[in-house]
């Protein structure tokens, strides 16, 4: 039986890009692709509880990171998730030079434009994973 792809954003509490990562991941799993994807708390992963290990270890994961520190990718790999794709918010942000996106607390309209683009990229990746039967 096909298992859901885990989409895990970074926590990025200090930067607008962290908020974008979070909103893009949550939009994907709650609105765009709820039957095929789900999220797991990155903070919970750090506890190494057996319950969260069972949720991640060996499963296909897409991580979404707001900055080059790559917290989501590193932590998910560390606990044994199969990181199929590492999404970087900044790659999409760079395509919107000159725009303002909001703050680490709230996003402006342009911020949500970027969130929507990232979410679409994540959905495409989920479909590729399912198609390649990984």
């Amino acid at each position: 039986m096909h298992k859901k792809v885990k989409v895990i954003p970074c926590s990025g509490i200090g930067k607008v890009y962290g908020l974008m990562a979070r909103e893009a991941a949550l939009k994907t799993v709650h609105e765009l692709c709820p039957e095929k994807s789900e999220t797991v708390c990155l903070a919970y992963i750090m506890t190494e509880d057996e319950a969260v290990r069972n949720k991640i270890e060996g499963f296909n994961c897409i991580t979404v990171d707001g900055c080059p520190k790559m917290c989501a990718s590193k932590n998910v790999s560390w606990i044994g998730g199969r990181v199929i794709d590492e999404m970087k918010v900044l790659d999409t942000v760079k395509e919107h030079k000159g725009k303002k996106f909001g703050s680490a607390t709230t996003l402006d309209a342009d911020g949500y434009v970027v969130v929507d683009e990232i979410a679409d990229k994540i959905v495409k990746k989920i479909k590729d994973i399912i198609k390649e039967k990984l």
Partner: protein
Amino acid sequence: MIENYAILPCNGLDKCAGAISRETAIKLCENAKNEIICPVFYRVAEAKYNKIAGEHPLLVIDGCQTRCASKLATEKNLKVSKKITITEEAKIHNIELKSNLRLLKNENALIEIILNGLNSAEEKAASSSDKTNASYNFEYETYQKDKFLFRVPKNPEIYFNENDCWAYVIGNRARIGVTDFVQQNLSDILYFTPPEIGAEIEQFGEVGEIESSKSVIDIISPVSGKVVSINETLIEKPELINENPYELGWIAELELTDFDSDKELLVGFDKYFEIMKKKLEDLNA
């Protein structure tokens, strides 16, 4: 191919991409100085391959996004010098891979493209490293302010200007860049505009621009000279300036025109370290 690699291909037996990965590795080892690491045998008897991986730079060839070979490398704590993913290469070069496991026209064409790409990348790296990298070794002193760490290189060949830019002077050349103070203050750097090669720069003149979400700044050259090379990697990856503004995020190299005069307006490590600490205190006041 110039480098002598240890090559770790994936073993994908259920996909064409795995077969391509294997064939690429075999062709690379027709150059007798490259050595293959068998991923299956590596799990059984690691001593032999640990030695090979320790003696050569490692080239990992993954067939697909599962990246089994990369994961094996991580598991064995190997440092990966270069990585190729066959399905990504196929996408980049617009080659459709068939679903059967035989290597036909498309698959062989892709292998040739990958091999040619590796050869030309190595030749380019060799010719530029002759001119650049040679002697830029940094030694650092660090200063912690709250949760932020600031590294300042303390080599006597390194000079700083009041705009927190550094110049590493060797002979008649200087490599220049910005300090940790700059990159920390800017936060995530998103864009880099390099100077023109051949441009004549005055001391304290502008030698490029970096832009983050917070602001745009001109890079103020500590020295006068002619731009002879730029760090092209920064155009695609300006975040390297955040990661390491000295070794990875250097901006440009200049052929010096008047360093004896320039030096009078620059400071060395001892003075700059104190200036930086004072700036950090003032920021928080």
